[in-house]
C-alpha cells in the first residue's frame, strides 16, 4: 500500500518538485553499514545485561551494575540537554534529586506505592525543567551554566534544610516496587530458577533504562524534536529562521532531561532505599557532565561508555583506596588529551567503513543542464501534488 | 633577491589534498593576483604563507625567512601581513582598538599615530565610526577596518584574501585604488580575488589556481585576454 504521504506534512503550499537524481541506497548489513552494526552492538549489549546475573549474582556486582545502569539513564538525559541542545548544565543532579526526593516523600510520608509516585515524579520534574528553562530564554552559554549551577545548589540546600525531606540525614526506608500483592522483595521464581530481589530489581532497572533511557532518547533525537535541538545547538538564529521556536525547543530539552533524571532518581531511591542531600552535590553534576563529554556528546554509544566509565572507574579503583581520585583525575586528563572529541564521538565512522565514505562533490553546473527537465515537471506553478505516489 | 617564492608546496587537511605541488613567485614591488574557483586552494595558500597551516612538503620562502617553519607572529613582525578571508574583525573591540592592534608589532608610537591618521584620511567612514564596536559594522565597513589594520602594521608584503567580497561597486573601486596606492608606496601585494575583472586591472601578473595547482600564469594583461580565463572567470 502506498503510504499517504501528503497528510504527514501540514499546509503544503509549496511542494518540492519531483526528484531528479538517483541517489545511492544506503547499505544495510551488519558490517557494511553503521546502522546495522550499531543495531547488532545494541543487541549484544542487551544480551550481556541479560546474562550478567547468571554469571555473578553477588550483592556487590548486582549493586554496582544497577548503579551503572541508573547512571546510563542519567547521562542519556543530560546528553539531551548538553549533547543535543547544546545547553551547558552544571546543576543537572538537581533533577535527579527532585526525582529521588519526590518519590521518597510520596512513598514514605504519604505511603503510596512506588509506581503511583511515578506520575508525581514526572510532574515535579517537568515543573523543575520549566523553572530552570525559563531564564534560559535570555541567557547564553556560560551565564546559563551558572544559573543551572545555582539551581542545583538551591535544590540541595533546600533539601538539607526542610523537615519534609528529612534534613541532612535525608529519607530512609524507601520501599521497593510492589504491584498489588507482589513486590520485588518477594523475589521471583521462573522455571525453578530463583531470582532474588536484587536480581529482579536489576532486570527492572535494565528494562526501564534500555527502553526509555536509551531507545527513547535516541528516538527523540532522531525525530523532529531532536533536529530542532541540534539546530538550536549549532545556530540559534538560523534555527529561528527555520521556523523553530527556539524557546520551546530549549525548554523541551530541559524538560526531557529533567524527566529522565527524575526517573533515574526514583530508581536510585529504590535502589539505595535511603537518600541524603550529600549525594546531590555539585561534584556529581560535574561527574555526569564528565561522563557525557568523555564518552562523546550527542552520541548514544559514547554516552553509555562514558556513564560506565564514570560510575565504574571509582569502584574498580577501590583497591587503590586513597589513590583512587588522584588516579581518576590523571586518567581523565589523559583520556581527553588523546580523544578530545570523546571516546566515541557522534561523528565517528567505523574504521572499516572509512574507505567507502562519500567524498564531497565538486562544484557542479548541473542546474543549467537539468534545467529543462525541471521545467517540464514543475510547469511553473505552485502545486501540491506533483509527485503523488512516486518513489515509495 | 627579495621576493616570495613558493616551490612544490603540498597541503593536506586530513584526507583532503588542498594544495598539490603549488609553485609561484612574487617579486618585490609587484601586485600579483591569484585567481581560481571556490575551493581551489587560494585561501589555503595565503594561510600557508602566514604560518597558519603547514605544508606537508615543499618550500615557501620570503627573503631569508622560511615560511614553512616560522611562527605566525614572527612572520608578521618581519612585515608579511595577511588580511584574511572573512575580515576577522575583533567584534567587541572598537574600530580604533582594532586599528591599534594592527600596530601590535610596531614599537614606535609616533609611527602608529602617523599611520592612523593616514588610514582615517584614506577611509573617512572609519573616522566616523571610531568608537563603534567592530562587530556591529556593516560588511563593507569591516573590510575597511581589516585593510586599515594591515596598513598600520606597515607591511612590506601584503596578502589580501578577497578584499572586495561583499563590497559595493564604488567601494570595490576605492579598495583597488588603495591597493594601488599602497603598492606605489613600496609594498608588494599578493591578491586573491573572485572579482577577476577588478583584480586584473590593478595586478601586474596573475596565476590561475585550480584544485590546488597552478594551471595558467602570465601578466595581467595577457590573462585578461586569454580565452580560457575569459570563459571561466570573466564571462564573455
Amino acid at each position: 500500500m502506498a503510504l499517504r504521504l501528503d497528510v504527514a506534512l501540514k499546509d503544503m503550499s509549496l511542494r518540492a518538485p519531483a526528484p531528479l537524481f538517483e541517489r545511492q541506497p544506503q547499505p544495510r548489513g551488519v558490517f557494511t553499514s553503521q546502522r546495522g552494526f550499531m543495531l547488532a552492538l545494541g543487541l549484544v549489549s542487551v544480551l550481556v545485561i541479560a546474562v550478567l546475573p547468571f554469571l555473578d549474582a553477588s550483592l556487590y556486582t548486582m549493586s554496582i551494575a544497577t548503579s551503572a545502569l541508573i547512571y546510563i539513564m542519567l547521562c542519556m538525559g543530560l546528553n539531551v540537554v548538553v549533547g543535543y541542545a547544546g545547553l551547558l548544565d552544571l546543576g543537572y543532579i538537581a533533577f535527579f534529586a527532585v526525582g529521588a526526593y519526590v518519590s521518597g516523600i510520596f512513598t514514605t510520608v504519604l505511603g503510596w506505592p512506588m509506581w503511583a509516585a511515578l506520575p508525581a515524579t514526572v510532574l515535579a520534574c517537568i515543573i523543575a525543567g520549566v523553572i530552570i528553562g525559563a531564564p534560559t530564554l535570555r541567557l547564553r552559554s556560560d551565564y546559563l551554566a551558572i544559573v543551572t549551577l545555582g539551581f542545583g545548589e538551591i535544590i540541595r540546600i533546600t533539601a538539607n534544610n526542610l523537615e519534609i525531606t528529612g534534613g541532612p540525614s535525608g529519607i530512609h526506608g524507601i520501599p521497593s516496587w510492589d504491584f498489588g500483592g507482589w513486590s520485588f522483595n518477594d523475589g521471583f521464581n521462573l522455571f525453578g530458577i530463583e531470582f532474588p530481589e536484587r536480581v529482579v530489581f536489576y532486570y527492572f532497572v535494565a528494562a526501564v533504562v534500555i527502553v526509555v533511557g536509551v531507545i527513547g532518547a535516541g528516538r527523540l533525537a532522531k525525530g523532529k524534536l531532536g533536529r530542532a535541538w541540534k539546530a538550536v545547538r549549532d545556530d540559534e538564529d538560523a534555527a529561528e529562521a527555520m521556523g523553530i521556536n527556539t524557546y520551546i525547543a530549549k525548554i523541551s530539552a530541559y524538560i526531557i532531561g529533567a524527566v529522565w533524571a527524575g526517573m533515574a532518581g526514583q530508581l536510585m531511591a529504590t535502589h539505595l532505599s535511603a537518600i541524603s542531600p550529600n549525594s546531590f552535590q555539585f561534584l556529581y553534576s560535574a561527574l555526569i557532565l564528565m561522563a557525557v563529554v568523555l564518552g562523546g556528546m550527542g552520541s548514544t554509544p559514547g554516552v553509555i561508555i562514558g556513564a560506565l566509565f564514570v560510575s565504574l572507574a571509582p569502584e574498580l579503583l577501590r583497591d587503590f583506596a586513597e589513590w583512587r581520585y588522584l588516579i581518576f583525575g590523571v586518567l581523565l586528563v589523559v583520556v581527553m588529551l588523546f580523544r578530545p572529541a570523546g571516546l566515541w564521538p557522534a561523528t565517528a565512522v567505523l574504521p572499516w567503513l572509512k574507505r567507502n565514505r562519500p567524498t564531497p562533490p565538486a562544484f557542479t553546473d548541473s542546474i543549467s543542464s537539468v534545467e529543462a527537465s525541471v521545467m517540464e515537471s514543475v510547469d511553473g506553478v505552485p502545486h501540491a501534488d506533483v509527485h503523488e505516489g512516486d518513489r515509495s | 633577491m627579495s621576493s616570495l617564492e613558493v616551490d612544490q608546496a603540498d597541503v593536506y587537511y586530513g584526507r583532503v589534498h588542498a594544495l598539490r605541488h603549488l609553485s609561484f613567485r612574487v617579486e618585490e614591488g609587484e601586485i600579483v593576483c591569484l585567481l581560481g574557483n571556490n575551493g581551489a586552494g587560494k585561501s589555503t595558500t595565503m594561510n600557508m604563507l602566514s604560518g597558519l597551516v603547514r605544508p606537508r612538503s615543499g618550500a615557501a620562502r620570503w627573503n631569508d625567512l622560511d615560511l614553512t617553519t616560522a611562527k605566525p607572529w614572527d612572520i608578521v613582525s618581519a612585515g608579511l601581513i595577511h588580511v584574511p578571508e572573512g575580515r576577522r574583525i575583533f567584534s567587541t573591540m572598537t574600530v580604533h582598538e582594532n586599528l591599534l592592534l594592527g600596530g601590535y608589532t610596531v614599537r614606535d608610537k609616533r609611527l602608529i599615530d602617523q599611520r592612523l591618521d593616514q588610514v582615517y584620511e584614506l577611509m573617512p567612514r572609519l573616522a566616523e565610526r571610531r568608537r563603534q564596536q567592530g562587530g556591529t559594522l556593516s560588511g563593507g565597513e569591516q573590510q575597511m577596518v581589516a585593510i586599515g589594520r594591515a596598513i598600520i602594521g606597515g607591511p612590506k608584503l601584503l596578502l589580501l584574501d578577497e578584499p572586495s567580497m561583499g563590497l559595493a561597486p564604488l567601494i570595490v573601486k576605492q579598495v583597488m585604488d588603495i591597493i594601488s596606492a599602497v603598492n606605489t608606496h613600496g609594498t608588494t601585494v599578493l591578491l586573491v580575488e573572485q572579482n577577476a575583472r577588478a583584480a586584473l586591472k590593478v595586478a601586474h601578473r596573475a596565476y590561475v589556481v585550480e584544485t590546488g595547482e597552478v594551471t595558467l600564469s602570465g601578466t595581467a594583461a595577457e590573462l585578461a585576454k586569454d580565452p580560457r580565463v575569459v570563459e571561466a572567470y570573466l564571462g564573455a
Partner: protein
Amino acid sequence: MQLIWNGLIVGSFYALVALGYSMVYGIIKLLNFAHGDIYMLGAFVGFFTLSAFGISNETSIPLLLVILLLSMVTTGLIGVGIERVAYRPLRKSPRLAVLITAIGVSFTLEYGVRQIFGPNPEAFPIRLESSGFDVAGVRVTASQIVLVVIAAALMLVLAHIVERTRQGRAMRAIALDPQGAQLMGVNVNRVISIVFFIGSSLAGAAGVMAGAYYGSIDFLMGFIIGLKAFTAAVIGGIGNLYGAMLGGLLLGLLESFGSAWFGGEWRDVFAFAFLILFLTFKPTGLLGARVVERM
C-alpha cells in the same frame, strides 16, 4: 555596617580568585575548575616553605610578604605548566573537552596534595595579628586592613594592564579570535602563558592571605571558593575584570546579608536566587558587554 565590612572582606578574597578566573575565561573561554585548587596550592606552598624552615606561630608582616611573593611565583609557574600540559593541546577541541580536563586537573591537584600533606587540615604558620579597633561602630582589625590593601593593589594594577596596554589589547583580541590575533603578530602562546601566570599567582596570593588570615588550610579548601569565584565572575560579567572585582565584592555582601536575614543555612539559596533573578533581568552580568552578533 558590620555586615558590610564583613562582606567586603570575604568579597575581596572572592574578587582575587574571580579575577584570575575571569582572565582565563576571557582569553580561552575555559571555565577553569582547577583555579580554586591553585588557591589551595598557594596556601600549601606557603605552608611547606615555612614548615621547612621550622617557622610557626609567626606574626611578622614582612615575612608574610616574602612568602606571598614566593607563592605567587610558584603558583604562577604551576598555572603556566598546567596550561602547557593539559589545556594547550586541546585548544582547538570542543570547549567542553577542556572543561573536563580542568576537572581532571582539579582532582589531580586536590588528591595529589592530599597524598603529600595528608587529609587533615593544617594550621598556617603565619598568623596576622588580629587585635581590633572600632571605627564608626564597625570592628576593624589591622589584618583586615592589610588584606584589603594588598588585594586592592593587586587588582588595580592588573585591571590597568588589561584595559589600557598593548598586551591587554592582545589578550582581548585572542579572546575574540585567536587566529585573527596571530595575524596581528600576537604571540598567542606567550600571551596565554602570561595570563595563566598572572591569574594563577593572584589565586596563589589569595591562598596565602587566606592561610594567614584564617589560620587553617586543607586540601579541599579551593573547591568552594572556586565555585564562589566562578559565581562572582559571572555576576560581574564574565571576562570583564572590573566586573569580576565588583562581582566578588557583591557576592561577599550578598552572603553577609543573606545569613543575617535568613540564617546561615539559607545564605547560599539567597545568594543564588538573587543571582538567577539578576541574570534574568540583566543577562550579561553587571559589566558584561552584550555581544552583538550580526546576521
